[in-house]
């Protein structure tokens, strides 16, 4: 028997992610023999207790899956239910929903860039330490985040678990004046987002190139949020009804979150800002494409650590898009249209800040839910995160244990994992046998 080297790396709890879980890596003679995420965020059984609830309760209930991206849950659920009832809404409702989503993208992306991810690039523990080094960036970043929250608050009622979204539209459509009052803060946010983009584009990025399958919505009219077909760079092009024929969720023993994989190959894939950037770059306004190109950031980008640049670019886009929508806003005559309640099924996906969020429902003749299925973005990225670490760890073997662990954590944060929805993680063990 040859001599074997052993090294153990352990992180009791991975911080700066939205949730709780663990990562375990076993290395034997520098070969990975086991690598697994343990997501131990407790299961909360939304798909089970939605059964028997009325369709009009669904956006309020599913919002509670995630306090960071409640708008995404509301958007996917109302579109899926409108699909079930055969209800079509006009473009002014679509624009107002898009405006609400812009607010969530801004606040969620700003939170992740500034508070959760940027500290990694400087070896810092938190936004508070970041503030000691870059006080101006932090102060401005907080204003950027605040502008996103203010937008969600005006359109949705409050920033966490908005109350204004319903099947068929809104409870109350905001007046033009209310939206116009947001313009100064959004203009300021747009300028800040541009500076944040410049800041993150110059970060020192570890070198790692991976031949990803990127998956996102794509719509010829616009950068994707609430509509489009689901496409990938490896041949997928489907509508929401086909989602479960192409993807499947598998349960693994070590995690409370289901893994979502391609049904045919069993392969993992990536959703989120980097996927949208790679697949939908040409749907960005020409001015933004130019700004990105000036910073050398054009597709294809296969370095997962650069997702922070994609996130910053999307933040800038969301500020600009919000201003565009407010400028051309036409208040709908009626805040919502009444659905024609009938037996039906509906599926939909939208682009949550972290990637596609799939909802599917069967409804009975009284509008009560008979079946609910929800596939959150982090559940889809979970297998991909494991695969990224399989690629990354062999390049880190020369590093001291602490640095190796730090880069593994950073690689996980590339995905902005929101573990309260897919569930929570992280404890990181790296064991060298």
């Amino acid at each position: 028997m040859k001599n074997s080297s052993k090294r153990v790396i352990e992180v009791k709890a991975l911080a700066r992610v939205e949730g709780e879980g663990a990562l375990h890596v076993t290395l034997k003679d520098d070969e990975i023999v086991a690598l697994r995420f343990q997501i131990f965020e407790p299961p909360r059984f939304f798909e089970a207790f939605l059964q028997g609830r009325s369709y009009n309760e669904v956006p309020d209930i599913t919002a509670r899956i995630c306090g960071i991206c409640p708008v995404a849950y509301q958007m996917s659920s109302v579109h899926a239910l409108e699909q079930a009832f055969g209800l079509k809404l006009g473009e002014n409702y679509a624009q107002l929903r898009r405006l609400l989503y812009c607010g969530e993208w801004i606040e969620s992306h700003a939170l992740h860039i500034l508070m959760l991810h940027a500290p990694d690039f400087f070896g810092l523990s938190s936004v508070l330490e970041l503030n000691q080094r870059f006080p101006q960036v932090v102060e401005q970043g907080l204003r950027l985040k605040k502008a996103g929250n203010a937008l969600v608050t005006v359109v949705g009622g409050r920033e966490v678990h908005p109350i204004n979204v319903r099947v068929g539209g809104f409870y109350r459509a905001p007046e033009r004046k209310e939206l116009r009052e947001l313009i100064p803060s959004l203009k300021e946010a747009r300028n800040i987002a541009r500076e944040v983009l410049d800041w993150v584009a110059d970060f020192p990025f570890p070198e790692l190139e991976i031949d990803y399958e990127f998956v996102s919505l794509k719509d010829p009219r616009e950068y994707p949020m609430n509509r489009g077909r689901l496409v990938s760079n490896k041949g997928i092009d489907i509508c929401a009804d086909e989602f479960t024929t192409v993807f499947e969720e598998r349960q693994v023993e070590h995690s409370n979150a289901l893994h979502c994989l391609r049904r045919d190959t069993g392969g993992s894939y990536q959703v989120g800002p980097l996927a949208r950037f790679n697949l939908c770059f040409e749907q960005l306004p020409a001015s933004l494409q130019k700004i990105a190109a000036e910073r050398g950031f054009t597709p294809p980008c296969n370095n997962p650590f650069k997702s922070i640049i994609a996130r910053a670019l999307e933040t800038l886009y969301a500020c600009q898009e919000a201003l565009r929508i407010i400028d051309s806003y036409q208040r709908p005559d009626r805040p919502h249209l009444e659905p024609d309640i009938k037996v039906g099924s509906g599926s939909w996906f939208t682009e949550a800040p972290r990637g596609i969020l799939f909802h599917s429902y069967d409804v009975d003749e009284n509008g009560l839910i008979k079946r609910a299925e929800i596939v959150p973005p982090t559940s889809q990225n979970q297998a991909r995160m494991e695969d990224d670490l399989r690629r990354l760890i062999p390049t880190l073997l020369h590093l001291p244990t602490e640095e190796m662990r730090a880069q593994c954590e950073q690689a996980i944060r590339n995905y902005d994992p929101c573990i309260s929805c897919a569930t929570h993680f992280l404890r990181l063990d790296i064991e060298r046998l």
Partner: protein
Amino acid sequence: MKKKLAVWKFSSCDGCQLSLLDCEDELLTLADQLEIAYFLEASSRIQPGPYDLSLVEGSVSTPHERRAIQEIRSQSKFLVTIGACATSGGIQALRNFADVRDFLSVVYARPDYIETLDKVSPISQHVKVDFELRGCPINKRQLLEVANAFLNKRRPNIPNHSLCMECKRRGLVCVTVAHGTPCLGPVTQAGCGALCPAYNRGCYGCFGPMETPNTAALAQRLKDHGMSSQEISRVFRTFNAEAPAFKEESLRHEE
């Protein structure tokens, strides 16, 4: 010496602890006043206990959480639960009205891999709680008031009257009286700022029951508005379903 703050998560959506990070204007000031000693979502720097102020988000739904809350209590001088999950079980407490084994098989192909408790419970069923902050989610102004009161050694000024008071103060037209919209305002604790009536919808009870609510009278009113028993049961059974007043009323109308 700055007082040490810890923020803990149990079964929840993260939204209440996020409310702390959503205090964009006050966060840095707050961090000057309080040492953020344990707040996993915000910082990877972890300091050992004991902690002067612990904010606890989420409800107890696993054997691990049942053990963890005891340890956290023993490390905390002042413990405040934040949000509907921590104070009354939250949305996941809906399993308390069903058989969790049925729920498991709906969601998981291999229920045997999952460790979970039959019943979900609020923190106060396990340990002594020094103050409960309501809401799904909590209101960040109220959260700052709790922090402020703690730093100044006074009791937080958090009203426990009904939402109707808040509605009147805002000068909003009553949605029930004016257009017959069912509203839980008369039995729900204030705190959100009467958001739903301001958006032309009825309150759906995010902040849980007010002090001594007359839920039976409200249920009768809902019935007069044409709601079925099933529907009445459901409106009391959402984010604060395990709060005694709402729980009892929902059971009374269950068919």
